[in-house]
């Protein structure tokens, strides 16, 4: 990737330093050790089972249906959810986990578009017309009922956004207590010198708005309904 450009930086930052009444700080600034760090106390000693309970409970608050499946049951459970939604056309990630979780024949169906396989790179258009988008979750946050998607390459950010409905496949091995565990992981990756994926999504249920008299309406610009399928992979 070609390096970008920056304009007006020196005068802008010199002015800030001057207003702060000191010289420019150009190195050795580190965040301090904060006196309170309550985020690390939350659900520290929870078992996966307990985290799953928290997740399920939270999903009722965020209008998200939860189903459970073993790896063997998974194709049938996905079909059930699609039937409930009246969904036929699906858009999915190009992601090895689909094969690992026994979904190869599901992926070969004609009304499924695997991200990146559309002719003329028309994936956005086809995905926009799909009834349902299906992705795996890379990390799952129990506290907030959140799936974390590290997009990029075959994992197009459109798949969880443009179709009318959204299904997240959640291997139990991806569940952590809260956002802190994932942001720490990203922070460690940055420190190791790796580039952060250009789009990371923390998704908690379907899109919604309360802009009209503060009435909650589920389904605005993103998916109008969302389902999580918890897969026992432990």
């Amino acid at each position, binding site marked *: 990737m070609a390096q970008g450009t920056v304009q007006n930086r020196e005068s802008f930052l010199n002015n800030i330093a001057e207003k702060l009444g000191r010289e420019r700080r150009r190195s050795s600034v580190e*965040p301090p050790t904060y006196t309170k760090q309550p985020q690390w106390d939350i659900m520290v000693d929870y078992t996966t089972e307990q985290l799953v309970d928290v997740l399920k409970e939270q999903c009722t608050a965020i209008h998200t249906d939860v189903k459970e499946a073993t790896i063997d049951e998974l194709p049938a459970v996905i079909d059930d959810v699609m039937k409930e939604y009246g969904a036929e056309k699906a858009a999915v990630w190009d992601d090895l986990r689909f094969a690992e979780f026994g979904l190869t024949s599901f992926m070969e169906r004609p009304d499924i578009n695997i991200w990146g396989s559309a002719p003329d790179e028309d994936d956005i258009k086809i995905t926009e017309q799909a009834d349902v988008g299906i992705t795996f979750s890379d990390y799952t946050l129990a506290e907030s009922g959140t799936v974390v998607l590290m997009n990029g390459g075959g994992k197009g950010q459109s798949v969880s956004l443009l179709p009318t409905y959204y299904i997240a496949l959640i291997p139990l091995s991806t569940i952590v207590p809260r956002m802190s565990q994932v942001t720490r992981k990203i922070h460690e990756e940055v420190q190791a010198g790796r580039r952060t994926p250009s789009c990371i999504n923390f998704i908690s249920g379907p899109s919604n708005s309360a802009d009209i008299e503060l009435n909650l309406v589920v389904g605005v610009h993103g998916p109008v309904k969302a389902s999580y399928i918890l897969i026992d992979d432990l």
Partner: protein
Amino acid sequence: MPMKIGDHSFDQRVSKGLGETHMRETVRSAQGRLHTNKSKAEEDLGNWEDWRTLSEEIRSHTLENLDYYLEQLSDNVIKNGGHVFFAETAEEANQYVKEVAVKKEAKKIIKSKSMVTEEISMNEALERAGAEVIESDLGEYILQIDDHDPPSHIVAPALHKNKEQIRETFERLKGYDKTSKPEELTQFAREQLRQEFLEADIGITGCNFAVAESGSVSLVTNEGNARLATTIPKTQISVMGMERIVPTWEELDVMVSMLCRSAVGQKLTSYVTGLSGPREEGDLDGPEEFHLVIVDNGRSNILGTAFQSALHCIRCAACINVCPVYRHVGGHSYGSIYPGPIGAVLSPLLEGYDDHKDLPYASSLCAACTDACPVKIPLHEHLIEHRRIIAEEEKKTTRGETYAMKGFSVTSSSPRLFDMATRAAPIMSSPFTKEGTIDKGPGPLKGWTDVRSFPAPEKERFRDWFKSRKKEDS
């Protein structure tokens, strides 16, 4: 839309606000619900005070080292292949965005909600350059089609409108023919806007927090419009106030957790998105070009002053949602796109006292805002400091004149505040204060008290007052 809204005087705005019964009912019920949701989210978390302490420490450290973190941020954005423009003024920011639009031959620009672009009137600048600018946040969309009605709340911009008014607007201007059910109104907006997203050449977003260590921009939303604006158009421009930054993803976690809980009482909003530069090799969506515009527009003048902590604000609106004055008069009375306690502190700092010198008096100094603020900004103390400065200035020009409206600030029942305020400014308050209730008074005070006598909340604890109000309401 500039920061300042309209040309009416403070008195006129307040009188108008008090006369709008619809608006006042909507605001009252909304404020109650938002506050209840936040309280519940606080209780859920358990040790709210520790979270506040942590958040304050993060914000202080970041602002103290702002030049360092902005340099790191911009280095990382360009490493990721994005472009950064530092804009000292609103004009510079608008000029840059206009140039990008012209270079891209943009006809249609889709925007997700951003207060800073409102502050610098970016839409008008782009429209003058011949582009169509479409707001996609539901609340902003409603205001935009209704002849650019100004926002009245920083989180729920169309809070002052009820659903019947919205239905009527949709019908009149967009040919809508369904009922005033929020579900149907929302569905209609979804259909209208989806097509716009698919056609847009540029997506413009604000930025809740930039992350210095990775050159990222984070967007916290419920509707999914900010995701659309950063997924489909080929060019993305994000505009941030220069203080909206955290050092690392670890601080982002804390600030986002606090923002979601304080703004809407959610653990996380439906979408929290971290964007780091344009799409990478092999990606088939996301912008091909990414621009980050970092705006000063008066903010740096706040650094190094007694008001520095006002820059810690994360725009959650918690202070607005507990403010008894906001509740009474509504957002438009403040005459600024930043209403409520934070607006009363910030507007005079960013735009000067000339247009906003009544605002520091639009407060009962009950300190409910300070108590509610997730990053512990001492809002009511900042208001007192503003009053002190204004009084000093006026002493210079009008020699010792006392201003009747300052009476609004104080009741004799709160010794600490009374002391602070009387030390700060010459105030004539007690003649208008009857048993803790402010009744009649000259100037603005009259307007404020026209509809019914205004409680002086510090006599009871604010929370108790709030509870008793709620009982009265129901």
